């Protein structure tokens, strides 16, 4: 099975245009995001201290970011003391090589996986496939994406762009090629689809000798790792195989066990709108005779230290991957997640991806550079964020980095000219007078042109400049 990649996608405006013309996608997304959005709002409204929890979550994460070196060393010591093996990976290639080497050392031909954003980020599945190792995603939505040779489009619900009849077709077409086929005569009823997935996955859980997971939290004080999930597939992966490998972004730390109190309230309500998620697995190293007998923890940097350099941008590292910002985002709702060209879509992706790709150190490619502009700055994401990441602030901050890069010459000239006019009341008045005369008695403008002019006028008219601008009205009235 080959895994598609986000690499080489065109900039956001281009991918968005394609997505917007897909009526089925827009209907699927509008329905799904509206449902999650309403449920989340209700579940958050149940707590009187929600704002205090958000503030606590932000403060705890900020403390982690400030003390990261010390806390990581503490985590490493405690994981090792509990029988785990800690590895450090500077980037995707190093992390993928470590996982591959572990798999090869045990001679395993297949691996089961719990849904993990970190392994999406490093494109682990593709790396393992190149070494001839089969990888099975066991989260239902992630499995739908994998079986459909598709890219994930949501952090929590990666197949949000699919409806159930599309899912049925994927199951019927693909399951038999990689394992137990979908039952004959299966319909698109959710219960039948879930049963088909259970039967298909059960074989893989019982056979696999190695599992790979991500982690929602790691506790420095105890050396424990926590995975929060809804389907129980995670529990299977984390307990049945002999070898467990966890790939964890270095920002996922919490100082103390008791800090989970805050995040176990923030995360389920923000992501699935549940008071409590169905399965929370927490383990510490290896327990003889119970669960995996070999545990590897790979601590992944992959651009996080570069992100930490930036005092404004680093707040993106507070993110707990709940996806509340995606569900409230009016842009995400219309374009879907694939348009963002990264496993991190939506508002958080627009600020996280460019930073992980090194925008603070060097110019970034055109696709990455387009991401901070994929927002109307409406602010709904900041209001929804359980750890108070001021996403609009970071977006604007990153835009400044992008326009300082080489290129953008035409835009820079336009903005400089606009500023020259707007700095001077005299020049502004002159431009107003010229505009008023040029527009004449037109009631609306309908122009053609390249760039921004074409962008505005493709679907919109414009009112003409006033023949009597306000400043002239004021002047004549005061006479």
């Amino acid at each position, binding site marked *: 099975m080959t895994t598609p990649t986000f690499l080489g996608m065109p900039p*956001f*405006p281009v991918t*968005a*245009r394609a997505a*917007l013309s897909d009526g089925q996608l827009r209907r699927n997304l509008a329905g799904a995001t509206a449902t999650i959005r309403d449920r989340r709002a209700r579940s958050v409204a149940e707590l009187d201290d929600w704002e205090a929890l958000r503030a606590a979550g932000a403060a705890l994460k900020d403390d982690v970011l400030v003390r990261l070196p010390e806390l990581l060393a503490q985590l490493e010591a405690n994981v090792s003391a509990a029988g785990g093996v800690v590895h450090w990976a500077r980037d995707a290639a190093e992390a993928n090589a470590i996982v591959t080497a572990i798999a090869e050392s045990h001679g395993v031909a297949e691996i089961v996986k719990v849904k993990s954003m970190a392994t999406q980020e490093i494109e682990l599945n593709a790396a393992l496939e190149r070494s001839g190792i089969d990888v099975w995603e066991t989260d239902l939505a992630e499995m739908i994406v994998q079986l459909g040779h598709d890219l994930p489009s949501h952090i929590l619900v990666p197949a949000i762009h699919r409806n159930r009849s599309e899912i049925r077709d994927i199951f019927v077409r693909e399951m038999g090629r990689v394992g137990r086929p979908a039952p004959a005569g299966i319909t698109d009823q959710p219960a039948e689809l879930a049963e088909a997935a259970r039967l298909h996955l059960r074989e893989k859980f019982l056979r696999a000798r190695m599992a790979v997971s991500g982690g929602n939290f790691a506790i420095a004080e105890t050396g424990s790792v926590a995975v929060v999930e809804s389907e129980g597939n995670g529990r299977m992966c984390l307990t049945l195989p002999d070898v467990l490998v966890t790939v964890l972004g270095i920002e996922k730390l919490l100082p103390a066990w008791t800090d989970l109190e805050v995040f176990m309230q923030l995360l389920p309500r923000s992501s699935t709108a549940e008071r409590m998620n169905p399965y929370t697995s927490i383990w510490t190293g290896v327990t003889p005779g119970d669960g995996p007998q070999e545990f590897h923890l790979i601590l992944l940097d992959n651009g996080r230290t570069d992100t930490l350099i930036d005092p404004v941008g680093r707040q993106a590292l507070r993110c707990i991957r709940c996806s509340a910002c995606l569900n409230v985002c*009016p*842009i995400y709702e*219309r*374009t879907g997640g694939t348009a963002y060209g990264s496993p991190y879509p939506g508002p958080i992706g627009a600020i996280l991806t460019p930073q992980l790709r090194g925008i603070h150190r060097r110019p970034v490619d055109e696709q990455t550079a387009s991401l*901070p*502009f*994929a*927002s*109307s*700055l*409406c*602010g*709904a994401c*900041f*209001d929804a964020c359980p750890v108070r990441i001021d996403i609009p602030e970071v977006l*604007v901050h*990153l*835009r*400044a*980095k*992008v*326009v*300082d890069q080489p290129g953008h010459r035409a835009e820079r000239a336009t*903005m*400089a000219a*606009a*500023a020259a006019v*707007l*700095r*001077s*009341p005299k020049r*502004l008045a002159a431009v*107003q007078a010229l505009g008023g005369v040029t527009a004449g008695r037109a009631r*609306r403008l*309908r122009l053609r042109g390249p*760039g*921004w002019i074409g*962008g*505005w006028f*493709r*679907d*919109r*008219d*414009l*009112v*003409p*400049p*006033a023949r*009597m*601008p*306000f*400043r002239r*009205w*004021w*002047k004549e009235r005061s006479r």
Partner: protein
Amino acid sequence: MAIALFVTCLADTLFPRAGIATVQVLERLGVEVDFPSAQTCCGQMHFNSGYRREAAQLAAGFAETFAGYEAVVSPSASCAAMVRHHYRRIDPDLVTPPVYELTEYLVDVLGVTDVGAYFPHRVVLHQTCHSLRLLRIGDRPRQLLAAVTGLELADPTHPDQCCGFGGTFAVKNPDTSAAMGTDKLNDLTTAGAEVVTSTDASCLMHLGGLAARRGGGPRFMHLAEILAATR
């Protein structure tokens, strides 16, 4: 002492009636209004597009122009939010007088919700993102509209969703912007209104532009124009 009107570059150039109406409403309530003629632009477009240097120059100009006034009133929530929220990120030492969006000034400072307006039409309010999520003006525009004689207020289904304007977002991501605007327009017109109003001329420029291209549809008026209307 007079308050200073910050009319905004957009209203000055494209929607002067919003500025004129703001003057009329304030003067009817006994407020002395001054228009410092050195004013131009708050710098929001440059700031939000990443042009910090240009934004800083415009912000400094704003601070200089309005220095010494007791208060500044503006018919734009977005521009008021620019000054109040973002100037400190440009230059923490920049000092301006308090800047109010018009409905804030009327309801909070003057303590007025009935401004003596008469407007016998069915109206729908587009609540703008920056009025809701930066200024947090809540239902002040609705309170003012509810007190207008003859006015009937229609309710959209998704009152807090963005219209898709977003400054240069409208031209850098025109397809997404237009898709959001079309959905917003449909929501507003399904509410069955003759007039769409808002605290921000920029959103109305975008929605009105989409409606004009489509043909027909409601009229677009700044909130100040409705508050200025009398028998």
